[in-house]
């Protein structure tokens, strides 16, 4: 995939300058998508509207001048790069503007070649800067509320496992810590953890439905048919050696989506059957005894399924597989490295940066060599 076009905003009170931009970049539409604004004020308005990558503004304008655009524009779009255009007389001011965060400046008048070179240089240095920033900080994968939810899930799941599994192997766990001697504590801990898990599930539901971040993630994780199936099949083919490259994935790979909905379904099943067992006495008032037996069977096997899936599949994929071993820190920091992002979530990378993952990958490889 080619680079997405760089979104360029030109702000100048001289129409001729704006026209020259449009003229220069018209043939390069695939690379640059130019918008113009005739004043500082209208420039800021456009900036509020669109996430421009690059803003080139004249320094001296009636009304809001270039410095004002720089100052307020950076607040609106911190990720955008700002450059100045200036006449000879105000080169000093342009240099001053760079102290306030402008990337570069170009002196008027300029030829078409000079303008093109200037903008290309800005574009290159922007990508270099972004890449450096990405290499240093990686990408945000999970927001703090999501990390907290995950940690609460780890705690409740672990407690439920520790206090539930002994019933599978009563001989082994007889007399082991609190798990054997007093089942009052074991059972009580299991129920407390269960209530914790139910609370978490409720909070999670509200979070994905009403919180912006949650809702964004919900939309990202809802499976798309047939895209996800293709991706899964591609992954299987790749893993078993029948395909040279792993298929690209978005924020959530097919397997991650599968796991997530596995957890959702599993939690629903476990909570339902768990409640049937917890409140057997009341359940028996409305349902036959075999319902309780079915609940026990389901609770038992669903637990086996969940525990094995987490222990084998989840642990391997997030911590043990090559490239991650001996452990990922994403679940603690919420951030994913640029390299992992390119490997695992190329489509997400492209969506976030507007740059081609393949190209970045190659470029990165050369850079590292």
């Amino acid at each position, binding site marked *: 995939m080619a680079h997405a076009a760089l979104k360029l905003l030109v702000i100048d009170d001289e129409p001729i300058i704006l026209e020259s931009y449009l003229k220069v970049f018209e043939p390069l539409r695939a690379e640059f998508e130019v918008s113009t604004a005739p004043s500082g004020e209208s420039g800021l308005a456009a900036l509020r509207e669109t996430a421009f990558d690059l803003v080139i503004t004249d320094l001296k304008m009636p009304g809001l001048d270039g410095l004002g655009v720089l100052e307020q524009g950076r607040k609106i779009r911190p990720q955008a790069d700002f450059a100045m255009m200036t006449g000879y007389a105000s080169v000093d001011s342009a240099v001053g503007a760079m102290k306030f965060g402008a990337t570069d400046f170009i002196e008027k008048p300029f030829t078409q070649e000079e303008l093109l070179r200037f903008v290309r240089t800005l574009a290159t240095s922007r990508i270099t800067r972004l890449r450096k920033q990405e290499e240093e900080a990686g990408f945000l994968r999970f927001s703090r509320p999501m990390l907290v939810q995950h940690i609460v899930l780890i705690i409740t799941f672990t407690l439920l496992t520790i206090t539930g599994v*002994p*019933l*599978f192997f*009563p*001989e082994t*766990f*007889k*007399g082991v810590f609190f*798990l*054997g*001697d*007093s*089942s*009052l504590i*074991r*059972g009580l801990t299991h129920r407390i953890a269960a209530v914790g898990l139910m609370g978490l599930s409720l909070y999670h539901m509200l979070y994905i439905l009403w919180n912006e971040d949650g809702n964004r993630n919900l939309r990202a994780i809802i499976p798309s048919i047939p895209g996800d199936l293709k991706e899964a099949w591609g992954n*299987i083919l*790749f*893993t*078993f*050696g029948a395909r040279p490259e792993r298929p690209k994935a978005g924020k959530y790979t097919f397997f991650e989506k599968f796991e997530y909905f596995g957890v959702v379904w599993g939690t629903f099943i476990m909570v339902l059957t768990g409640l049937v*067992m917890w409140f*057997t*006495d*009341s359940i*028996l*008032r409305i*349902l*036959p*005894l*075999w319902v309780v*037996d*079915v609940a*026990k*069977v*389901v609770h038992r*096997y*669903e637990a*086996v*399924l969940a525990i*094995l*899936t987490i222990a*084998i*599949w989840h642990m*391997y994929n997030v911590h043990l*597989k*090559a*490239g991650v071993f001996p452990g990922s820190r994403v679940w603690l920091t919420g951030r994913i490295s640029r390299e992992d992002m390119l*490997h695992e979530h190329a489509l997400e990378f492209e969506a976030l940066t507007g740059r081609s993952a393949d190209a970045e990958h190659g470029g990165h*490889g050369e850079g590292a060599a």
Partner: protein
Amino acid sequence: MKANRGTNLWAASVLAGLCVLAVPGAARAADCVECHGEVASGAALKESPHAKLGEGKGSAVCVACHGDFEVAGDAHARPPKVNCAKCHQAVDAKMATSVHGPDNTDGPKCVDCHGTHDVLRKGANHGRNLRIASKCGACHEKEYEIYKTSWHGQAPNDKVATCTDCHGDHDVLRPGDPKSTVFRLNQAQTCAKCHMDEDRGFKPEAVAAVKDYFGSVHGLAVTKSGLMVSATCVDCHGSHDVMHGHDSDKNRISRAKIPGTCGKCHAGVVNLYLESVHGKPFLEGNLDVPVCTDCHRTHQIASHLTAGASTYATNVAQTCLKCHAQASVVNKYGIPEARVQTYQESFHGASSKLGDTRVANCASCHEAHDIRASSDPKSSTNPANMSKTCGKCHNVEDVTKPITTGKIHTALAENRHWLSALIEKLYIVLVSVTMSFFISYIIADIVRTSRRKKGGGGH
């Protein structure tokens, strides 16, 4: 050797007596022999430890006990009454504290037990058990007759207990006297004196059994709480009639006698038992059924509230399992197979195995003594009574249909709802398929990654 020395001493003392014949007023053995030849020169006196009494005192041995008295011609006055206490003061003091009283009272006299001229050293002869018993038996006839038929009375050796070993000898007290060795609270220690002594040739397990008793609910009640009604050795084994082994039908600890023996104190539960599915065949003479000791054990018997007891909540299943998992029993009586195993696989069973005393065990539902077939309308597991039975723990006493129609022991195929069986099968398939996929995918992934690394191709 001893006998020889005795004879020598006897000869010496007779000689000494003859040497002082001239001394007037003193009775001399030779004098006694003249009239009482039979006694004075008899073998009994020769064997007696008293034979040497006259030695070196210038008097005959006879007078040591019979005292000094004037002899006029062929006759002499009736000698004073023999007073053993003259020499045996300590023994006499002991006697004074005993139920028999000192020698000069109405009770048995020294001579009643020890004899007169034939008095012997302690333990001098064989057959001490019966010899002693026969002495006591002179008065205590009934006890003696019983004792003779007991193991102690008939044992192939005479080291076994005789009257004095349990009751004491000179200091014998009434059994009701708190100081008596056979007082209810002291009696077990008295038996233990011998029965915990491995040097006497008791089997280690027999010695262990006595030790166990002291840790049992009966033993602790006696030793710690001083509970007079708690069982001691004699309550189960008998006292004068104590028997050996379990084989004899007369033995009150034989299988056929056990409910009766326990029932002496535990009449209520034994009556419940005799009405139960175990007790009815017992009354008909079937000894395959469990009796009290099969579940409660014997010397180790502990309260069902004591961890470790065979009837403790978490051990009940194991106790029932002894018979109910035994193919011979199960087949012979057509007991539904694997009942206990199905319990152990249930939530109640697993939780109980873990140590939870609150979950139901066999007895919670089937009762302990009053176990009845579920077809019996009085049975706690009769469908009509199930709500009440489950209601002991669960708040379902007023729930009827789901409980009366529901199946317990559902690990048994016949009790299983088809849906539960189907879901289990589906889950087994699901788990196997999923895990197979996960594992093969992971292996393939590892292989693939390591190959790519070796190949040197990028990522």
